[in-house]
């Protein structure tokens, strides 16, 4: 495996939630196939490009063994059409229906070539990453190898295990929270949001259970500081913790819809530390109370072939990823042209 994963000089896409990847994605030029080159060179370039992202930690042979030239697809059917016609209307007229293809409206293409890496998404480590249980494909692999992942309740240590439809996999909760949460770097982060929220809702904290735990965890002078601050705040304002509805009423004027949503999201994130399950615990490998890691939102998606329950960190691999009209379920950052060229590369001798 290569040592250095994130580079800034050549912007490469990686299967990871790192801020380096985000920055590289923000400035990456549109991947293109050099048209002046030979067909072989075009295929080579496309293959080299897509392998920066897809299964970067696998050898070429490992990927070629699971490569399949067949792609899965599904067609949306309409009950009304099935009920009204028996299919013979498609052969009417001169053989292609009375209106031809126009009878069906604008038909979107099925992006089969964007499905190139669907067998890769069957791998256990990739599914763990796609279910948002690990911050990168490599970390997902590590979780599997270190024995944190179970398939159908049995420990599975092979990252190359190909999930079958209906398989349920689970990752150790602490590991998922470690992967998705803020890192525990210094004391400030270890205390989590508690320090930030202190100023606004000091009284609840200090008399509650969380306050006690925090007080034990902190240094003496830090506690003194925050307490002094909260006392100051209380004296300044009669109601230090306004209810969400109240604050909404107070500041709806002059705010756009987006600003309101952002403010609400911020309040909800702050409220995460009020969750009874989200307690301060210095033994955890992540910053507690837990809050989401930075730069997670632009990478957040869960493909439809997975059904995930983050409450217990379990997920079910429902079916293989399929292509539908205008939609490919296998996640890939590359356009169809590049994937098609890579497909042609892997197709040889097959």
């Amino acid at each position, binding site marked *: 495996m290569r040592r250095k994963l994130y580079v800034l000089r050549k912007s490469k896409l990686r299967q990871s939630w790192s801020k380096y990847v985000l920055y590289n994605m923000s400035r990456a030029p549109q991947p293109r196939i050099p048209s002046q080159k030979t067909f072989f060179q075009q295929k080579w370039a496309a293959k080299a490009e897509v392998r920066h992202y897809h299964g970067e930690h696998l050898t070429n042979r490992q990927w070629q063994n699971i490569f399949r030239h067949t792609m899965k697809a599904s*067609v949306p059917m309409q009950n009304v059409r*099935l009920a*009204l016609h028996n299919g*013979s209307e498609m052969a009417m007229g001169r053989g292609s229906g009375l209106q031809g293809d126009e009878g069906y409206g604008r038909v979107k293409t099925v992006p089969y070539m964007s499905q190139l890496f669907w067998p890769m998404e069957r791998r256990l480590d990739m599914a763990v990453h796609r279910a948002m249980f690990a911050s990168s494909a490599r970390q997902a692999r590590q979780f599997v190898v270190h024995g944190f992942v179970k398939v159908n309740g049995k420990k*599975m240590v092979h990252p190359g295990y190909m999930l079958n439809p209906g398989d349920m996999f689970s990752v150790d909760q602490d590991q998922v929270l470690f992967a998705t949460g803020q890192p525990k770097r210094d004391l400030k982060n270890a205390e989590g949001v508690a320090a930030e929220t202190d100023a606004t809702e000091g009284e609840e904290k200090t008399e509650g259970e969380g306050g006690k735990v925090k007080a034990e965890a902190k240094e003496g002078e830090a506690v003194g500081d925050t307490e002094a601050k909260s006392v100051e705040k209380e004296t300044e304002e009669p109601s230090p913790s306004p209810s969400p509805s109240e604050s909404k009423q107070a500041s709806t004027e002059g705010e756009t819809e987006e600003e309101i949503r952002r403010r609400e999201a911020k309040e909800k994130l702050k409220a995460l530390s009020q969750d009874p399950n989200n307690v301060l615990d210095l033994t955890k490998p992540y910053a507690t109370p837990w809050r989401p890691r930075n730069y997670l939102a632009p990478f957040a*998606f869960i493909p439809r072939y997975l059904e995930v329950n983050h409450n*217990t960190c379990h997920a079910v691999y429902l079916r293989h990823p399929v292509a539908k009209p205008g939609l490919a379920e296998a996640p890939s950052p590359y356009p169809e042209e590049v994937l098609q060229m890579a497909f042609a590369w892997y197709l040889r001798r097959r």
Partner: protein
Amino acid sequence: MPARPPPMTTIAKRAFGTSTPLQKGPHSARGAMSAWLSGPGAVFKQPTGEPQYISSYDRSTWERKDKDRNPDAFVQPYPFNRYFKSQPVLTDAFRNEIYARVKYRNLSIRQVSAALSVSIERVAAVVRLKQVEKEHVARGGRLSTFLTKALDQMLPVIDVPSSTDGKGRSGGGGAFEDIQELPIHSLAGRQVFVPTSESREFTRADAGKEFGLPAADVMVPHPDLVTLAKERFENVPLEERIVRQGERDRLEKRRREAENQRANERKRQKKVIEVGRWKWCLTEAETGKVGFRYGFPLPDRKKGHVKIPTHVS
């Protein structure tokens, strides 16, 4: 005493950090990155209550695109792949609703799927996952509900549809997914040339027969919905339709029960011993005809034999 040689490995200062404090000037690559991250990239740092993908921003000015004009950009996580979209996920309330319908109202998975417009496999998976969650709580485990709440702030989500009366499913905008999706069978992948007479009515059933498959009306996940639509167009009165559907449900239930009974019978004949991660299914066998033979080499250490299991039961 000779000087101690320098250690072969150095102790990592940061476990997973890739950054070095060198070259962080404004003109270096890292300086440019930190400038972008603190400038236009700052919006991506923490969730904003809705999906926040790079594609929803203009890549030159870093202004938000107009949502009405290009709605697709707001669900496209990768700027160059327009075919991959971030599709909504179920909220926890929706999952609880599905679980309650199956578990407490005793509706079949197929009925719940049709009523809530969630695919059959997904309904089954949600019920499984919720069951696991209940057992986890019963064992005294903690739930990471805060993780779900945080992810709801950055993923597109769909809540329980407001008007969810048993059968009357109107094709409103709140449908979670298309439940009548026909997976393309591998047998249907080939092209065939079938000459027929012009007078012949060549239907879907005939086409299916050519490929060795049943007609699409039957292959679809919910053939009952097609039948219902057919009866509606034949002007069958509502009461009659309800009676017929009830009869179909009853037959389906009986079929399922018979299947379960057969499966249980099969299971009863086997002897199952569970030890740790292994589950031994013992069946009657005659000596010398099957299984490991003493003195006969096993090929499991040979080259080319893949040891990764292909399934976990």
